[in-house]
């Protein structure tokens, strides 16, 4: 049976005792991605404090994030359309760990937010804040909270977070 299932598990202790030879290496993998027309414009408009989408005349859908082709109709999309910075939570989570698995006391609240003005089901990934974790619900209406114009850099993080739309305006 042992022969059938080979393998030598290592525990932290064996590793730390220095008997196991290990070497570490941090690769230098750097990129500068071409955003292209669709996402380039999306980022540019974020900097201006607006969300923009593309319409496909084939399926009549309004697509966000915007793309220059429609993946359903396999044809170029047709027109730029501004959409609102309000929307509805399609789904969410309360996440207690960071991307590199550090524990958090207060959860991050990632959500897919359906954008008002885009077609049904067209969501983007973002974060919710200014809402008690227990109060978050699917279907909740939210609105974007933008960075001050001078601090925006043409990034998805130009929207700081989304907050419940029903609360009083700031």
């Amino acid at each position, binding site marked *: 049976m042992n022969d059938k299932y080979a393998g030598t598990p290592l525990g932290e202790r064996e590793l730390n005792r220095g008997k196991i*030879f*290990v*070497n570490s290496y941090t690769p*230098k993998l750097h990129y500068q991605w071409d955003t292209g027309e669709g996402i380039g414009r999306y980022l*540019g408009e974020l900097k201006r404090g607006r969300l923009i989408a593309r319409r496909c005349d084939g399926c009549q859908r309004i697509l966000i994030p915007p793309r220059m082709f429609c993946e359903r109709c396999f044809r170029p999309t047709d027109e730029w359309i501004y959409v609102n910075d309000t929307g509805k939570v399609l789904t969410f989570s309360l996440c207690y760990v960071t991307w590199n698995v550090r524990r958090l006391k207060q959860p991050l609240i990632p959500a897919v937010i359906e954008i008002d003005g885009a077609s049904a089901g067209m969501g983007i990934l973002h974060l919710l804040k200014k809402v008690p974790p227990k109060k978050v619900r699917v279907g909740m209406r939210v609105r974007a909270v933008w960075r001050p114009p001078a601090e925006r850099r043409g990034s998805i993080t130009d929207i700081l977070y989304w907050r419940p739309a029903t609360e009083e305006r700031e």
Partner: protein
Amino acid sequence: MKPSARIEDHRTWPGAIPITSTYTAGVAGQIFFDALKQSGKLIATRCRPCKQVYLPARLFCERCLDALTEQVEIKPTGRLISYTLCQVDRDRRPLRRPQALALVQLDGANTVLLHYLLDVTRPEQISIGARVEVVIKPKRRRIGSILDIEGFRLVHDPEFSSKRTPRRKGR
């Protein structure tokens, strides 16, 4: 990225793969590095059916996939299979001194070892086929790494020099 005013400026986006990798030396690597670190010895493994002696030691034969259990100690002398003088670093910037690298087949092994070629800066100093020896770091500086080997050094070999005059290739 610097803030910019025009949409046209948002045409590229910078990023990286933010990881570090930690590698174990493996089952065979443990044997090889342990011997290198403790006693400065080079341990290979042999596959008798395939007539191969693998250095550094391996757990399996790549030709027949059988497990390799027979260990062989390899003498630290061998023959130059190829060499290069590298002029650039990994950012493609010129190096102040060329980095000499060599492939060496040690006596008794069927495989080659890639390492630095010590004290060589010009192609005129060497030629393929030359005899070399392995230089191993003193014990206190050995940590169980391929860098416990300092590199290869040319050894004087009257027989080789008389057989063949070093050729200059390229310019």
